């Protein structure tokens, strides 16, 4: 008689222990994902559906906002998008190249003054870039670089290089030096051994670094906002237009936000493993 009661008694607490956990997970997912979903849904609605008294969850999606945003003359968002793609790719490649070289030196050589160099790189990664913005604006004005792609590529490379160098250094150090030496014994040059052995083994780290710096460049607002006006404007700026006034065209702003978020989210999800390893290695090492 006592046995079934005790079994039930044991089952009940485990079920009640599971329920709050499940509820917490659902709440966390809703908190993280609903706002993203909501702006995407808004971009697919008509004006009337957006301004309805109660939120509309079920409707026939329309791509009108995207058509207007990208292809109507004078919207300019298509050129913002292309500028963003070009500037992000160029600055990411430049960052990896420049930071990779530095990381190679820092990971493979012991020299006097290495400590100060590391501190210099770390400090420049931590100080607020906004403190540099006004003198840079004056400098770029002098050289006629305001509103050019080159200005943003240069700035983003400089902003991301300290972080990338720090991260790549830790990844290069993860590859045993003995492997490189073995390749050198087999007839590789020192640089050849580095490219063929260390670079290949540290490839996941290089991908992680590229993804994170690419994301930062893609999302950057401050410098783009201050340094561009017509020709080199990037996509994040398109989200700050159309603000103010009584009637906000939410479907158009939603479309712009979606165009900006979608590539970042897709790349991020695809490379989630690298991203997590990069973010943790970048701060804990």
């Amino acid at each position, binding site marked *: 008689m006592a046995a079934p009661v005790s079994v039930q008694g044991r089952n009940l607490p485990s079920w009640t222990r599971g329920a709050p*956990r499940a509820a917490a997970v659902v709440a966390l997912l809703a908190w993280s994902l609903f706002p993203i979903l909501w702006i995407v849904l808004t971009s697919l609605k008509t004006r009337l559906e957006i301004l309805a008294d109660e939120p509309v969850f079920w409707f026939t999606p329309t791509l009108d906002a995207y058509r207007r945003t990208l292809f109507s003359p004078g919207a300019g968002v298509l050129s913002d998008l292309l500028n963003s793609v070009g500037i992000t790719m160029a600055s990411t490649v430049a960052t990896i190249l420049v*930071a990779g070289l530095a990381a190679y030196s820092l990971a493979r050589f012991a020299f006097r003054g290495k400590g100060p160099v590391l501190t210099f790189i770390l400090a420049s990664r931590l100080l607020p870039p906004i*403190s540099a913005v006004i003198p840079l604006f004056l400098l770029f004005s002098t050289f006629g670089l305001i509103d050019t792609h080159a200005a943003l590529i240069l700035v983003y490379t400089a902003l991301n*290089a300290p972080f990338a160098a720090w991260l790549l250094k830790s990844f290069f150090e993860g590859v045993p030096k003995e492997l490189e030496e073995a390749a050198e014994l087999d007839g590789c040059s020192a640089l050849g051994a580095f490219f063929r052995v260390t670079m290949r083994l540290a490839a996941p780290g290089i991908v992680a670094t590229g993804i994170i710096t690419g994301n930062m460049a893609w999302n950057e607002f401050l410098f783009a906002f201050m340094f561009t006006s017509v020709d080199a404007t990037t996509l994040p700026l398109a989200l700050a237009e159309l603000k103010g006034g009584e009637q906000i065209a939410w479907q158009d702003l939603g479309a712009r*936000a979606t165009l900006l978020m979608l590539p970042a989210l897709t790349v991020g999800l695809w490379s989630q493993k690298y991203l997590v390893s990069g973010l943790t290695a970048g701060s804990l090492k």
Partner: protein
Amino acid sequence: MMTVEAPAPDRLHEPPTQRRRMRRIPPWLLPLLPVLLLIAGLLIWPMVQALVESVSVDGQWSTSAYEQVLGDAVFQQALRYTLVFTAATIALELLLGFGAASLLDGMRARTRKLLTAALMLPYLIAPVAAGLIWRLMLDYSIGTINWGLGLVGIEAVNWLGSASPAFWATVLSEVWRSTPFVLIILLAGMAAMPTDVLEAARVDGASRAQVFAFIKLPLLRPAIAVALLFQTIFKLRLFELPFILTGGGPGNSTTPLGLLVHQYYFRYANTATASVVSVVLLVLGAVIAFAYIRWVYREVDA
């Protein structure tokens, strides 16, 4: 005689100047130069320049810009906002991130990875997009938050139009966007925890609360410290999120120091006062950076 003459033929066969030059440039220096030049030219030099600009008026040494800025009520409000915002967001992010990490830590690896991927998404989104998203969510008439509050019988809040709700609106959207970073760092800290120590404590009769307070929390201290320092550093960069969400208002109640740099420079065309604000941010950043660098070197030495 032999030993002195022996090297002579060798030297004749090799181009001496090239050899000497090779020896003078150490191999570590060249690959390091581009990064150092880039950082020095585009980050450090401008920061030093801002420092110089902040104490010069018409080419003369003067602290009048400091007097002007420090006495300006707008600056005082921006400083107060930046500090309170930083404290509030970081407290909430640590709390939420810690809760989420504890929840995920006990799960099977596959479930944990899947959930981490989903919960990480807000962190990938541009701050400007996050500001826009929450401006839509918190809209007085069409926002889903007020609609949800209405469902449980709470009156609609004018989130973006009055000072205190606007402050919490900026806090909320920043917490939404950047908690995933804290989550990832804490999750990594929890994963690195030695399970045998925890087990031994439990075998010795420690309660769950005791294991948490005396073993887990101290072991997590480095991860918490890193999350804290980095998040503080990032909060000083606050610019576009309040810019798009509240426009820095109502009034200037949610204007951070970063936005003030822009206002002083572009609205009032005042290089000196804008530079003063830049320097204030620089000093705040340097204090935190110093703490972090000391922490890094202590970890390396340990």
